């Protein structure tokens, strides 16, 4: 039997830079292929070519064994190839059933919309998925994960025989992924062919029948799941063993760099206390949505907190004032780099100098030379690669953008560095560099708070890890604990509420 979807010898380059080199893969009816690889490996490009959003340079795409010479989005749809994109684009102010039927509306005899008919059919469609949604709800009332299920439902009702799911679990909380998995399995049972991109190894184990790994645009692995142990997948993805990315840990100093006492971010909610020594990297582990970002934002003052004390060194810092925090040398590298970290339209120079702009100006007048010198030094300290300071930040690669976000805190002396998912969206090469930067900054005496959902990163970089659940610290792992083999499991047990200990570290 022919595969439902197959690509052969796919080639694609953007602006002369190859992103796909001789990639061939296929997916059969009732099969789930996990397409793994780091950011920039070419996963999205494969998906976009197959769904006609991007045209291939060379190679062949076959649907049900027949070669399709030209694919645009219309053709893909007609052939039954559908994509559920990573960033969903529903119509938020229309109802669920309207969303499902936009573009193929049902009509009454008189040419009016057959709302009753659509409503009924929508209900049946959603029932198949065992999702309890009223089709007349407004789309914007739904959580991201339910929205995603509606988008998947939409794809199937278009008669899709092959569905491409682009990082479907990246946007939804862990406790809701089970529902997604259930739907994927249901579709597989119905004979739908699926390609599923993900970073998460656990997910591959749970769902996939076969694993395909891309690295730097090349296919480096195509194996049945049983033949692909976890470490082999990881090595295929990053091209070497993960441990080699992490620098040796340094011994923290004695002085305390950051003290947080009874910080209450949510009114009436739990409070958080922690201390980070200078030169120490304190990891904050936990599930997505556990409240770690809120803690960092609360310390920085960009999110309102209601009680508590924050000290940098021995000096108290006014709460709820980012500018006070910045003056005290607190730096925040936010999780959402493009949304909250950078002004993409502006130059490296402007972005890097913004936080401490008053330091290189008198009465608001910017000293150009001083500013350029400071920015130059800061960019060199993170080994930024750009076409000079006047390059627009939006045209830098993800890794270099992240370096700018870090560099802009280094134009003046920084004392505390709050990192929220510092390597999200950063490709693996640059990832190692960012680890080195973080490590070096800690070595110069900064107190570093590191939030990461990447377990390896958390363990590989941190001197100590605190685990957060429901906005409270529920467990702590010392340097020695982090060297234990069971460390991942322990963090997970704390994070998911299977285990708890109190602040002094004794298990309860």
């Amino acid at each position: 039997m022919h595969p439902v979807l197959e690509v052969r010898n796919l080639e694609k380059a953007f602006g002369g830079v190859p992103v796909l080199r001789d990639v061939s893969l296929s997916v059969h009816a009732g099969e789930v292929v996990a397409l793994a690889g780091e950011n920039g490996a070419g996963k999205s490009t494969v998906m976009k070519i197959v769904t006609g959003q991007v045209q291939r340079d060379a190679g062949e795409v076959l649907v049900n064994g027949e070669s399709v010479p030209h694919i645009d989005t219309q053709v893909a749809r007609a052939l039954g190839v559908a994509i559920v994109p990573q960033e969903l684009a529903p119509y938020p102010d229309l109802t669920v059933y309207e969303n499902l039927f936009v573009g193929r509306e049902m009509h009454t005899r008189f040419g009016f919309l057959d709302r009753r008919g659509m409503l009924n059919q929508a209900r049946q469609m959603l029932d198949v998925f065992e999702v309890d949604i009223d089709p007349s709800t407004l789309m914007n009332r739904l959580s991201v994960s339910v929205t995603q299920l509606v988008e998947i439902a939409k794809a199937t009702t278009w008669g899709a025989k092959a569905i491409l799911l682009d990082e479907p679990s990246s946007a939804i909380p862990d406790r809701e992924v089970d529902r997604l998995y259930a739907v994927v399995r249901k579709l597989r049972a119905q004979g739908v062919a699926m390609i599923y991109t993900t970073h998460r190894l656990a997910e591959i184990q749970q769902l996939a029948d076969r694993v395909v790994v891309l690295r730097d645009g090349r296919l480096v692995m195509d194996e049945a799941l049983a033949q692909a142990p976890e470490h082999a997948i990881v090595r295929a993805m990053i091209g070497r063993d993960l441990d080699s990315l992490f620098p040796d840990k340094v011994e923290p100093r004695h002085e305390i760099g950051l003290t947080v006492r009874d910080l209450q971010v949510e009114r009436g909610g739990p409070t958080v206390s922690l201390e980070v020594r200078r030169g120490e990297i304190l990891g904050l582990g936990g599930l997505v949505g556990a409240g770690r970002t809120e803690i960092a934002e609360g310390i920085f003052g960009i999110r309102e907190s209601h009680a508590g004390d924050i000290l940098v060194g021995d000096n108290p810092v006014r709460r709820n004032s980012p500018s006070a925090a910045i003056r005290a040398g607190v730096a925040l590298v936010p999780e959402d780099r493009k949304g909250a970290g950078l002004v993409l339209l502006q130059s490296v120079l402007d972005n890097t100098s913004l936080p401490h702009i008053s330091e290189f100006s008198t009465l608001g007048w910017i000293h150009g030379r001083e500013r350029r010198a400071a920015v130059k030094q800061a960019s060199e300290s993170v080994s930024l690669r750009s076409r000079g300071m006047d390059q627009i930040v939006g045209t830098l690669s993800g890794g270099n953008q992240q370096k700018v976000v870090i560099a802009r805190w280094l134009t003046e002396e920084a004392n505390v560095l709050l990192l929220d998912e510092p390597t999200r969206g950063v490709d693996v090469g640059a990832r190692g560099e960012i680890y080195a930067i973080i490590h070096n900054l800690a070595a110069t005496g900064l107190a570093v708070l590191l939030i990461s959902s990447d377990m390896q990163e958390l363990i590989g970089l941190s001197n100590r890890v605190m685990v957060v659940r429901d906005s409270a610290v529920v467990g702590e792992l010392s340097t020695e604990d982090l060297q234990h083999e069971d460390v991942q499991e322990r963090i997970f047990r704390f994070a998911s509420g299977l285990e708890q200990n109190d602040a002094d570290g004794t298990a309860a």
Partner: protein
Amino acid sequence: MAPQHETRTTDAPDPEKHQERKLSYPTETPSVEGVPAPEDSKGWNRERVINLLIRNAMVIVLLIVMVFFALRNDRFLSVANARTILIAAAPFALVALGQTIVILTGGIDLSVGSVIAVSAMSGAWMAVNYPDMVWLGIIVAILVGTFVGLINGLVISRLNVAPFVATLGTLTAASGFAYVIGGGAPINGLPESFGTIANTRVLGLQLPVFFMIAGFVILGIVMRYTAWGLRVYSVGGNRTAAEVAGVNAKNMLTSVYVLSGMLAGISGIVLASRVISGPPNLGKGYELFAIAAVVIGGASLMGGRGTVWGTLVGLLLIQTLNNGLDILVVPAYWQAVISGVLIVAAVAVDMWASRRSSS
């Protein structure tokens, strides 16, 4: 706590910005790491020239328009006519400047036309009642404009009312006040000295032309060389990121509308001085004219992109066009039609050019 959304400080994603981000994706992917281009390659290769031309597309359009008129009528290229164009542009210059700064933050100020009226009327009223103290009228007019701007700024930054709506409100209310001050009629009988502000000539040019030049020079410098200028661009380019960098976005927004109101107040007093009276419909429609000049100048209504220099070009383009069509004796109604078409065409050219230069 609602754990189902990954918490971040951003509000609901702005669909427009979103798209921009997506568009930028292909250019981002292939950026070759590890190949630092030479810091600055001097020398005039073809690509550099083309890029320079594209970046100044609107200047070229302006030159083409000028050449066209010059070829059609030799009266066009004369010192006297250049002076006419400058004098015609001057009254709009200050409000267009204020509008530029507001638009850079992603906002809009629709109220400036009415602010001109209400500040002119208050200035005129003061001048009639205190004829010996013309300066008092001037100060009052500027204060009134500033005050309306402050209201705009506070409503927008503290009450989170959309700038379009907030300034639409003050547009209507301030216009009402302008009529209230004059009891529904123009204020006449102003002292002659009131006219000195606008009608004094230096080097054959009326003072407002110098106000225009001063305004562009000062704000041009402020936007480029001061922390405030940088912060305006940051708040407009990405408000959340600016806040994370310690910028007080609310105060920035307020200051921008205050500035726009103040400049409209100055325009009001200058315009009233020119006619030595206080007509309550003074400045009507100036807001749209100002917005047109800013947009032709290459500013993005989404904020974060645009320059004071661009607005000057936009302003001169519109005025040159009107002037040239006058000289060619094109009927006024047709002039309006042509202007309208050209505004859209100019912006379309600019969009095309900026796409070219970024790809």
